[in-house]
C-alpha cells in the first residue's frame, strides 16, 4: 500500500498538467492581488457609499485581510475546478495510456490501487489549499499590510485585524474539507466515465450544479440540512458576526461523511468494473 502511494505521488508530480494547474491557481491569485491594488479603493468606496454621507472613515479597509478574503472566494469555483481536473487526470491518464492494464497485470489489489489514488488526491488537495493559504497570507500581508476586515454577509460585518486572521485561517481549514469532497467526487466520476474529456465535462457540471443547488432554498427541512451541495459554503460561516460552531462542526462531519461515501462508492465500482 505504501509503495502504491509512493508511486501515485511520483506519477502526480511527474505529469506536466499538475504544474500547469498549480500555475493557473497562483496566476488567479496574482490577478486578484493586482486588480485589488488598482481597483480595490473603488470597490471599498462602492461598498461604503451610503455610509459616507454620515461618517468619516479613519483607517483603510483595503488591506491584506480583505485580499485573503477575496482569494478565499476562489473556493467557490476556480480552485475546485482546477483540483477536479488534476485529480481526475490521475486516473483518466492511466486509462488513456493503458498503463492501468499494465499495473493490473502485476500482483496489485484493485481496491488498494484505487484507495492509494484517493489518498494521494486528498493529500494533494490539502497541500494545494495549504499553499494557497500560505501564499495568500504572505503576499497579501506583505503588499497590503494588516487591518480590519469588512464582509457583506447579512449586513456589513467588521472584524478586528486579529479576529479577521483567526476567521480566515479557520475558513481555509473548512474550505479544505469542501475541496477534498470535490476532488474525491472527481476521482469517482473518473472511475465511472474513464475518458478524460467526458470526466472533465461531468466534473465541471457537478461543480456548477452544486453551486446552483447551494443557492436553492429547499425549505427548513432535513434535506436542506443534509444535502451535500448545502455544505460547500461552510467556510463562509466564519464571516457571520457570531460564529455558529455547532453548525460548522455538523457540516464538517457531514462533508467528511460525503467524501467517504463517494470514495467508498468509487472503490466499489472500480473493484466491480473490468479494466479495459
Amino acid at each position, binding site marked *: 500500500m505504501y509503495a502504491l502511494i509512493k508511486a501515485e505521488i511520483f506519477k502526480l508530480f511527474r505529469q506536466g498538467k499538475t504544474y500547469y494547474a498549480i500555475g493557473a491557481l497562483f496566476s488567479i491569485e496574482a490577478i486578484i492581488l493586482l486588480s485589488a491594488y488598482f481597483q480595490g479603493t473603488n470597490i471599498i468606496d462602492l461598498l461604503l457609499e*451610503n*455610509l459616507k*454621507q454620515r461618517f*468619516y472613515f479613519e*483607517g483603510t479597509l483595503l488591506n491584506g485581510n480583505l485580499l485573503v478574503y477575496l482569494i478565499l472566494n476562489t473556493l467557490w469555483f476556480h480552485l475546485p475546478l482546477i483540483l477536479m481536473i488534476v485529480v481526475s487526470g490521475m486516473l483518466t491518464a492511466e486509462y488513456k495510456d493503458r498503463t492501468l492494464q499494465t499495473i493490473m497485470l502485476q500482483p496489485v489489489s484493485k481496491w488498494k490501487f484505487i484507495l492509494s489514488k484517493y489518498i494521494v488526491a486528498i493529500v494533494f488537495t490539502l497541500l494545494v489549499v495549504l499553499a494557497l493559504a500560505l501564499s495568500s497570507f504572505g503576499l497579501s500581508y506583505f503588499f497590503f499590510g494588516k487591518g480590519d476586515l469588512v464582509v*457583506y454577509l447579512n*449586513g*456589513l460585518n467588521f472584524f*478586528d485585524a486579529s479576529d479577521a486572521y483567526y476567521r480566515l485561517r479557520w475558513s481555509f481549514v473548512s474550505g479544505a474539507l469542501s475541496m477534498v469532497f470535490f476532488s474525491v467526487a472527481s476521482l469517482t466520476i473518473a472511475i465511472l466515465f474513464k475518458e478524460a474529456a467526458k470526466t472533465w465535462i461531468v466534473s465541471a457540471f457537478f461543480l456548477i450544479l452544486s453551486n446552483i443547488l447551494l443557492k436553492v432554498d429547499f425549505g427548513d427541512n432535513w434535506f436542506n440540512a443534509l444535502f451535500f451541495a448545502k455544505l460547500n459554503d461552510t467556510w463562509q460561516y466564519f464571516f457571520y458576526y457570531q460564529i455558529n460552531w455547532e453548525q460548522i462542526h455538523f457540516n464538517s462531519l457531514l462533508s467528511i461523511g460525503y467524501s467517504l461515501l463517494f470514495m467508498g462508492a468509487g472503490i466499489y465500482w472500480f473493484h466491480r468494473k473490468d479494466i479495459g
Partner: protein
Amino acid sequence: MLFSQVLLGNVFAQPVDPDLLKLKSRLDSIQSFTTQLTLSVDISFINMPVKKAQMMYTKGQKVKFSSGDFVMLPKRGLDFSLNSLLEYDFITVDRGMEMQDGKNCKVINIIPTDKRADFSIATVWMDTRLRRLVASEINTKKDGSYTVHFQYNQDQKVLPDKVTVNFEIEKIRIPINFMGKDTDIDRKKMRAAGSKTGAIYLTMSNYQIKTLL
C-alpha cells in the same frame, strides 16, 4: 454682547440668544484638547466591535482623529465647539424651557441666514445654569437629521464624557454577488426595511485640555 459677536466673527442682523453666546464664549476659551474615544455602533445592518480612537481639537481647525483600527466617526455630533453651527450668519429663536435628559433646559432654534451653511435648522437644549450643551438636533441640507445627546460626569465640565449620536440612515446597496454569498432572503429583508435609524455611542476619557488663562 458686542464682544461676543466680535468673538464669533460675525455681525448678526438679528439678536443672538445671550445664553448661546455665553456658552460659545466658554467653549471658545478652550484652545485645544485631546481625548481617547471609545466608539460603539448601533446600526441594524452593521456589526462592528467597539473601537478606540484619539480625537484632537485645536481652535480654528477641523477636529482630527487617529486610530490604529478602522473607525467610523459620525459627521455630526463631535463638534463640541459649536463651530459648524455658528460658522455663518444666523438668527436664533427662543423656544422656552423644556425637560431634556432629566434637566430643565433652554431650547433655542438656530436658523442660518447664509446659504453656505450646510444645515437648514438646528435646535439646541442648553443647561443655562451650568453653561453647557445637553442636546442638539441638526437638520442638514444633504445628510438628513442628527440628534446628539451629551452627558457629563461633573457639574463644572464643559466637554462631554459621553455622546450619543442618533441619525437616519439608508439601507446599503451592495452590487450583486459582491463580497460573499448573495442570499435572496436577505436582500428581500433589506428592501423591505427602507431607511433605518442608527446610533453611535462615544465615550471620552483622559481629556488633555488647554484653555485661555
